[in-house]
C-alpha cells in the first residue's frame, strides 16, 4: 500500500481560498473540511505524481458550486455589511472592507477565477483545469471580474472621499 499524500501542507492555502470565496470563516472551514473528506474518500482517483494542490482545489470548486446551487434563488446578497460610517485614519480597515464587499458582489464564477489567478497564483491553464472550463472562458471571466472590481473599488473610494470631506 502506498503512503497517502500529505494533505496537511495544503491546508493553509485551501483555507485562504475558502475564506476569500465565502468571506465567512466558519463557512470557509466547513468547506475545507468537506474538501478533505471528499479527497480522502476518493484518493484512489488521484493520480500519484499529478498536482495534488490543483486536484484539491478542483474538489473544493465542485463542492462550492453544489452549495451555491443548493441555496439556489433563496440566496440574495446578504453577506455585505451595511455601510458603516468610516472613522478617520482607518484606511486599512476600509480597504479590507471594500475588497470583501466588492468580492461579495461579483458573480461566483468571476470571483473564483479572480481568486484562483490573483490570490492563489494558478496559471490560466491550471485555473481552467480546476474549474473544468476552456481557457478562453477563464480569460473572459478574468477580464470581466477585474473590470467589475475596478468599477466597484473606484465607486467605493469616491463615496469614501465624499464622506471624509
Amino acid at each position: 500500500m502506498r503512503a497517502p499524500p500529505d494533505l496537511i501542507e495544503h491546508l493553509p492555502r485551501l483555507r485562504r481560498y475558502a475564506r476569500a470565496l465565502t468571506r465567512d470563516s466558519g463557512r470557509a472551514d466547513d468547506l475545507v473540511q468537506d474538501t478533505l473528506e471528499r479527497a480522502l474518500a476518493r484518493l484512489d482517483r488521484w493520480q500519484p505524481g499529478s498536482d495534488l494542490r490543483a486536484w484539491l482545489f478542483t474538489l473544493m470548486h465542485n463542492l462550492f458550486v453544489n452549495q451555491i446551487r443548493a441555496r439556489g434563488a433563496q440566496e440574495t446578497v446578504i453577506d455585505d455589511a451595511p455601510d458603516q460610517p468610516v472613522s478617520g485614519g482607518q484606511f486599512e480597515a476600509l480597504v479590507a472592507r471594500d475588497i470583501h464587499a466588492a468580492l461579495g458582489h461579483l458573480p461566483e464564477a468571476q470571483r473564483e477565477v479572480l481568486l484562483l489567478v490573483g490570490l492563489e497564483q494558478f496559471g490560466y491553464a491550471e485555473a481552467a483545469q480546476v474549474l473544468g472550463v476552456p481557457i478562453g472562458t477563464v480569460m473572459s471571466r478574468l477580464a470581466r471580474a477585474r473590470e467589475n472590481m475596478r468599477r466597484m473599488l473606484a465607486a467605493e473610494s469616491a463615496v469614501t472621499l465624499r464622506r471624509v470631506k
Partner: protein
Amino acid sequence: MIEDVREDELHAYVDGVLPAARRLEVESWLAAHPADAARVEAWAAQNRLLHGAFDPVLNEPLPLALVRAARRPAPVSSLRAVAAALALIAAGLIGYAAGLGTHDALPMQQARLARDAAIAHVVFSPETRHPVEVDAAHAAHLVAWLSKRVGTPLAAPDFSAQGFHLLGGRLLAGETGPVAQFMYQDSIERRVTLYVRRAAADKGVTAFRHAREEGLDVFYWIDGDFGYALSGPIGRPAMQQLADAAYRQLEADTQ
C-alpha cells in the same frame, strides 16, 4: 513598431506570465496608452489588496478539526466499516452503562486528548525546516507567548536529565480553545512533544493514562484546569520517565 497588444496579454502582464521580450513590448505600449496603463495598474492593485486581505489566513493556527480531517484514513469498504461502527456502538453502550450516574463524558474526552496530541505530534514532528513556530533560543518569549494565547501561565518542563532539549513550540486551535505544543529532541534527533490544552469539563486530577495512537506512546493526564499529553516514538519505559519528570516539574510549578 509594436504589434497591437491584446487584452489577454495585459492580464498576462499583470500576472507576470508574459515572456520577457513581450513584456518589454507591453511596457512600451502602456507608456503610450495611458488608459490601458491605468487599467493594468488597477488590476495589479486588486491582486495586492487580495493578498493583503487574505494572506493572514496562511499564518493562523490550524484548527485541529481540520488537521484531524486531513489525517483520517479513507472510509474502508463496507464490511469493515460496518464492523467498526458496530464496535463503536457496542463501546458506546458499554461506556454508557458503565458511566450511568457518573461522569461518563470523562474517558471519552481524555481519549480525545491522547488522540489529538498524537496527531499533532505526527503532523509536526517530521518537519525539518519549521518543526516549531518559535524556537527555543527564544524560550522565555515562547513560554510567555503560549501562556498569553492559552490564557494561563505555562511552563515548558526541562528534560535535559533525560537527554532531551527543548526545540520550541507552536500554537494550534483546538475545539476547547488554543493548544500549546512543546517539542523536544534528543542527541539522535528523536522527537517528543508535550501537548497542553485547557481541560473542558474534565477538571480535577487524574492518574497517568497510557495509549497507543498513530504508532506512538502517549501518556496523558489532567491536572487542575489543564490536560497534558506527552507523545513520542521512543518506547513506553522512556516515555514513562519523561512523563514522570514533566508531572513532577509542573506540579512543583503550580505550588
